[in-house]
Every structure is written in C-alpha cells, then in structure tokens.
C-alpha cells in the first residue's frame, strides 16, 4: 500500500480496523480525541463494526470487556486521567484473561494536569496500574509507523496471551502527522473456546474475576504469573542506535527517544561516542539486552519526560554494574534535542558525576 500522511491518533484507528478491531468504546479527552472520532467515522463502514461513545471511561472499559468476552477484537483509548479511571476494568480484563487493546496518549499530570505531552504514566502502565497481581504488555511507540505496526501487533499479542495490551504514547505522538505504510494484518488466531456465544447444548461457560476460595485464587494468581513469565521471556523488543563504540548510552523511549536520537546525532558530529538504547516494550522491559550492554559500557543516562520512572527499571536491569544518571522534564514540557545534547555534554565530561542526581 502507498505511503500516507496521517495523524498519530488516526493511524492507531486505521491500524486497529485493519487488524480486525470491531468494537470501540471511549469517552472524549484531549489529546486523543481524533482516535474516537476516526472510529466513529470508520467502524460503521466495516461489517459488524460498533462504535460507542460511552457515558464515562469506566463504562467504556467494561463495554470492552463485554465485547471481548463475546469474541470481538476490542479497543478503548483515553489520556492520563481517563486511563486512571479505567484501571478497575483493566484489572478485571487481566483477571478474566480477556484480550483487549488500551491506548493511553499521556498528558501532563498528576491530577487533571494539562493537555501537553508527558511520560508520567510509566509506573501506572508497567506495574499493572489497577489492583491485584497482574501485568499488562506495554508498547512505547516512537514514530507514526510504529503506532501502526504496534497497534496491529497489540491485537495479536492480546489474543495470543489472552491479556490486555497497552499502547503508551503521548500527546505529541497523537497529534503529529508522519508518513505511514500499513502492513498487511495477520489473520486472527485465538482459542474460541472461552468466547461467550451461547452454550447451546454444551456446558455453561463462566468468565469471572471473583474467586472467593483463597487457594483457588492463589492457583489463579500462579497461572497468570506463569503466563507473565512466558511473556517476559519471549516478547521483549528494543532498538539500539550507535551503541557499538559508545562510551555513554542514553536510555529513552517514545517521544523521549526521538529527542535523544536528535541529541546523539549532534554530539556524534563533535566526536563524542554516544549511543541510544530504546525499549519498545516497556513491559516486559528488555532487561537482559540492556544488561549485556553494561559488559562493555560503564555510563548510562536515562532521559524521560517525567521526574524519573523508567530509570528504576534501568537500575534493576543494570544491578549496580554501571553508573546511571538521569535527566527529566515532567509536566508537559518537550525539550529540544539541543537542550538534551547540552545536558549530555556536561555529564559526558565528568563521568563520575553521572550519579549526581541521586
């Protein structure tokens, strides 16, 4: 298919429909409104497509759970404060092992915050977000092309593992237009046995998250945990950029990684050997891949548009094997590559100062 120029929010909508998403429910919030707008316009054009503007975010996520239980590829989207509201439902999806895709176009927080791009929801997304022992697969796309590709992959993984998958981007990714080529969607493969389409003459099916017997609940927790272990082992994704000869590695994701790449290009021109490690899956975090880099590189600098959240995963991955610094711009500020280059330059010059922040 040809290259098209599309806004990030709409790219997700188009990719979802191509991937076979036939149910979308959501409640408006900037900066992701173009996504429900796109679904409202285009889901009705495909057979079986259903769009609902729900009365609230909480209603939307539970509608998604219902549609998923009935066998539809389902999606909801929101931005930070709205995603907080959806956590109860995401926890239920995880407990009931129902596939779904949830999109978070992060904005400044906490509270209602503002509508500018931010990366402050990393903890919420990667630690489960809602209550109970569970994890969600989390993608951190950095280009419109990745929004398209990862949205399709999100539906496939959600089905494969029967688990909610989150796309964690930010207001800038949602609003920006970039050229995109949509890949062909894979045919849907999933075990239809759990789907609620009427028992007929067979046994009744029950999908539930309420398991009152603690021993049964414990067993369910370990079952889920074994699934998360499999995901951790198989599904990590990351990108390395100019790490072969690097003396310092920037670690950043999403919009932050774009800025980091721009800074690295500038610094490389002046002869500084700097590389980028960009996690594409934020959970499972590419722990082993990052740790391998620490065998030959001693200095890491984490950059986030937050006060420091992913930096904890970097510390867990490196386990004291390298120096780890941090630079953050929370609250909806998107720094320029020049600013980040200046920060890196200062740290690069006095490497032992890398841990100054903590």
């Amino acid at each position, binding site marked *: 298919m040809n*290259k098209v*120029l599309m806004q990030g929010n709409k790219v997700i909508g188009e990719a979802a429909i191509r991937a076979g998403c036939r149910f979308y429910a959501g409640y408006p919030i*900037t*900066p992701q409104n173009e996504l429900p707008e796109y679904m409202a316009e285009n889901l009705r054009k495909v057979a079986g497509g259903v769009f609902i503007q729900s009365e609230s975010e909480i209603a939307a996520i539970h509608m998604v759970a219902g549609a998923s239980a009935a066998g539809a590829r389902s999606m909801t989207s929101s931005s930070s404060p709205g995603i907080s509201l959806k956590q109860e439902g995401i926890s239920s999806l995880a407990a009931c092992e129902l596939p779904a895709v949830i999109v978070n176009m992060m904005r400044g927080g906490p509270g209602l915050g503002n*509508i500018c791009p931010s990366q402050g929801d990393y903890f919420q997304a990667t630690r489960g977000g809602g209550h109970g022992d569970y994890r969600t697969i989390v993608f951190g796309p950095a280009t419109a092309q990745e929004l398209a590709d990862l949205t399709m992959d999100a539906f496939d993984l959600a089905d494969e593992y029967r688990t909610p998958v989150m796309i964690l981007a930010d*207001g*800038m990714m949602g*609003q*920006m*237009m*970039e*050229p995109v080529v949509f890949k062909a969607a894979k045919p849907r493969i999933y075990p239809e046995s759990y789907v609620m389409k009427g028992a007929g003459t067979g046994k009744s099916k029950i999908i539930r998250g309420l398991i009152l017997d603690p021993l049964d609940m414990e067993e369910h927790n370990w079952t889920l945990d074994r699934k998360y272990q499999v995901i951790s082992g198989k599904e990590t994704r990351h990108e390395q950029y100019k790490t072969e000869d690097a003396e310092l590695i920037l670690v950043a994701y999403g919009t932050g990684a*774009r*800025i980091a*790449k*721009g*800074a690295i*290009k500038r610094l490389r021109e002046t002869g500084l050997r700097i590389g980028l490690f960009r996690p594409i899956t934020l959970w499972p975090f590419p722990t082993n891949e990052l740790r391998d880099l620490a065998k030959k590189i001693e200095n890491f600098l984490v950059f986030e548009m937050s006060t420091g959240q992913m930096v904890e995963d970097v510390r867990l991955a490196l386990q004291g094997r390298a120096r780890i610094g941090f630079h953050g711009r929370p609250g909806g500020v*998107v720094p*320029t*590559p*020049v600013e980040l280059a200046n920060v890196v330059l200062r740290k690069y010059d006095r490497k032992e100062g890398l841990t100054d922040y903590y």
Partner: protein
Amino acid sequence: MLVKTILCGFGGQGVLMMGYTLAHGAMNAGYHVTYLPSYGAEVRGGTANCTVAVSDDEIASPIASAPDHIVALNTPSLYTFQNRVAPGGALFLNSSIIAVEPSRRDVRVFKIPSSEMAEKLGNPRTANTVMMGAFLKITGLVPPDIYLRGMETVMGSKKKSVIEINRRAFAAGYEFLEKAE
C-alpha cells in the same frame, strides 16, 4: 538537511491546510516529514499554528524552537513567532493584513499581499495558497508540480473549481516574488 517552518495566522485562514499540503508535498518529494498542529483549548477567531519539519534524515523532534522559516498570515502571529526564527532565516508575511514592520534585521523578509491577491482571483479564502506559492518559490523546499499534485490529493473531496482556483492562487504567489526580485 533539516528545514523547519512555522505557519501561523487566524483560525479559519487555512493555516493548518497550508502546513498539511506542504507536508504532503514534501512526503511526495521523498523527504522525511513531520507535521505538528497546535491543539487543545483554542477559540474561534483565535490564533492557529502548525510546524512542518522536512529532512532527508529521520526527524528527531517535530517541534521548532528556532525555525528556519515563518509564514505569518496575521499580525499577532508575527509578534508571537518573529523572535524565534533562526538568524539568516526568512519571514513570509501576508502584507494585506500585517501593516507593521518585523523587529528582526537578521532575517530575510518577504511581503506578499496575499489576501488582496486572493480576492482579485475571486476567492479570498485562497490567500493561504498564494502564500505557499511565494514560499516555495523562495525556499525551493518542494518542486511546484509535486506540491500541486499533493494539494489535489488533499483537496480531493472538494469541487474541481476549488482545486482550479487554488492552482491559480499558487501560480499568482509563485510569480509574484519572481517579479519582486
């Protein structure tokens, strides 16, 4: 090469359309491109702006803290953005509306009475396309034929006559600065 342009004016002047068609043209010309609109709490009659980045390499940030060019369709936009443009950059001003002189002396200034020109062509709403003609004449960012083809794709759903008058508006802007130089 990395060229960033901020396009700005009143909401309703076709500012975002200018950026969209420019980005479309640059994509068709084979460049990497990003288009970032201002979004959120805007009011009717307020200002609108968007940033278009064009490069032969991956684009790190779609935001321009020091843009190479500014295309301003009204005076408040000129005030907002003139101090951001990089030294040696260029300002393209709709001189039908902008009566003030820009404060910068280290940039090139091109004045195009685009609202009047558009009116003379028969559709005042094509002032934005007049500006794009002048802009591409000077910057050479996208070849005119590729830009126009992109514009037709973007405006595909509109009437033939709308596309035709935009073609003429583009040509008028393109020729205007040729005469001026």
